[in-house]
């Protein structure tokens, strides 16, 4: 496992030496149970070096937060995966927001922030809530079902594509496309290579669906295109910004909701607490995002020599941020390995932090809140009734299958 192989002065010539660890955070065995290895990474040093992929890593909350909040030094325009766009051709045209730095990022970010603002959430809230109620009613009729396909996937797919204004045809490409995008942030392992090999039909669908004519009026997609008319963005930029929402707007919420259901199924005392006080639904979802961290990692690339956590990192180096580890760092959190729906979750980095913090966080919270509110009112118990299967992805943490039975309240 994660032993410290060597401590080389060479990579830590600034101040503190940086320990080299033999950890592959993109291996299937790691995905099965990342938490003990996260603890070793945190305890080894503020900054570590992972020989397997020749990257620096930060796993403590303080350093992860510091990297997220210094985008001038830890840039995104060279890619937020392992691939360095300064040295390799990206597998798709780079994102105008995720894989961009200020000032270019500032303009595109403002557009998506407007499209997904708190004021817009007020408008879509009732519709999202009604669909959540209907979904829970339907599942209570069935009693036994798969909480991943029939709930965590099914609910976001019942609201988000319509909110985007997508055509009915071709939506089956959405989850495979998102899985591809998040696998592609990883190293050139089998997960990434196989996803890219199979990507052509999904990419073709997304490219077509991002065009203005294919987006229904009033949806998020049409709202993005409307920003062309105000001069905020150019016509060729609009489809790429729609693409950002299709890349990051579905699989993330699927895994967030899946995490919440899995938590409530494993920790019945927390389900009981939620049933007593359904107003805790929103925080129960937020705590699940902290606890499971559906988005586990992102990379940055250094733009200069920098000292962080008492260690020196040279220019042009990839730095892997272990968001999930920061979210369970005992230096920051009391009882971090406990799922506690009354916890003050503010400050967790499950949605990132700083200028690149998830632009769709309000949509994710809305979906999580209304679904868990309906569940809190209607469901008395959740029992896991079959084998729980993990789904492997280089960036996303979630399940493939979670067979459950719901008991009515």
């Amino acid at each position, binding site marked *: 496992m994660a032993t410290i192989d060597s401590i080389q002065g060479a990579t830590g010539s600034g101040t503190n030496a940086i320990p080299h660890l033999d950890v592959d955070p993109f291996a299937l065995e790691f995905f099965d149970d990342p938490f003990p290895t996260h603890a070793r990474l945190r305890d080894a040093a503020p900054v570590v070096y992972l020989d397997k992929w020749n990257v620096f890593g930060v796993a403590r909350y303080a350093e992860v937060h510091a990297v997220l909040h210094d985008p001038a030094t830890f840039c995104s325009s060279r890619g937020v995966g392992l691939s360095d766009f300064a040295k390799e051709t990206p597998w798709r045209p780079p994102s105008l927001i995720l894989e961009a730095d200020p000032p270019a990022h500032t303009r595109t970010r403002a557009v998506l*922030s407007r499209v997904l603002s708190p*004021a817009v959430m007020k408008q879509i809230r009732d519709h999202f809530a009604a669909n959540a109620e209907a979904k829970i009613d339907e599942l209570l009729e069935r009693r036994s079902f798969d909480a991943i396909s029939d709930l965590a996937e099914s609910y976001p797919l019942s609201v988000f594509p319509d909110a985007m204004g997508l055509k009915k045809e071709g939506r089956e490409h959405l989850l495979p496309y998102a899985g591809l995008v998040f696998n592609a942030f990883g190293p050139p392992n089998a997960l990434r290579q196989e996803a890219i090999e199979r990507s052509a039909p999904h990419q073709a669908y997304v490219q077509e669906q991002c065009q203005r004519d294919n987006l229904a009026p009033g949806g998020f997609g049409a709202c993005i295109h409307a920003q062309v008319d105000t001069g905020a963005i150019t016509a060729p930029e609009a489809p790429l910004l729609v693409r950002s929402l299709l890349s990051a707007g579905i699989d993330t919420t699927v895994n967030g909701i899946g995490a919440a259901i899995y938590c409530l199924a494993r920790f019945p005392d927390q389900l009981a607490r939620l049933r007593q006080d359904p107003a805790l639904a929103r925080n129960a979802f937020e705590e699940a995002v902290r606890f499971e961290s559906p988005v586990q990692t992102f990379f940055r690339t250094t733009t200069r020599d920098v000292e962080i956590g008492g260690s020196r990192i040279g220019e042009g180096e990839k730095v892997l941020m272990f968001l999930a580890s920061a979210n369970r760092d005992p230096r920051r959190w009391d009882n971090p390995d406990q799922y506690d729906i009354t916890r003050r979750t*503010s400050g967790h980095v499950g949605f990132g932090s700083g200028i690149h913090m998830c632009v769709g966080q*309000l949509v994710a*919270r809305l979906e999580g809140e209304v679904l868990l509110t309906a569940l809190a009112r209607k469901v008395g118990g959740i029992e896991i009734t079959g084998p729980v299967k993990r789904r492997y992805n280089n960036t996303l943490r979630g399940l493939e299958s979670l067979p459950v039975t719901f008991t009515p309240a």
Partner: protein
Amino acid sequence: MPTITFIQPNNQSRIIEARDGESAMQVATSNGIDEIVAECGGNAMCATCHVYVDEQWIDRLAPMSGDEDALLDGAAAERLPNSRLSCQITMAPELDGLILRLPDRQI
């Protein structure tokens, strides 16, 4: 150290010492002021740290950004002329005695 007086919706008030450079949101969340939710952790992205700034203090704060202005339109409680996001108020000696009223809801 500058102090902030937080007035809760039931008119009870709490006076809390702040460190210079800390945001009013951080002061609230680290001192158990539950009316400040701060879901986004201080990134000016969620409008759940909404406060009403006492009239005598409103003009002494740094002006709000366009982002903050837009977010306040979506705040859960009514937006008033003295509405601000507490994550965007940075504490400094000249803000000693700042008075912030807390809305009855953030979500």
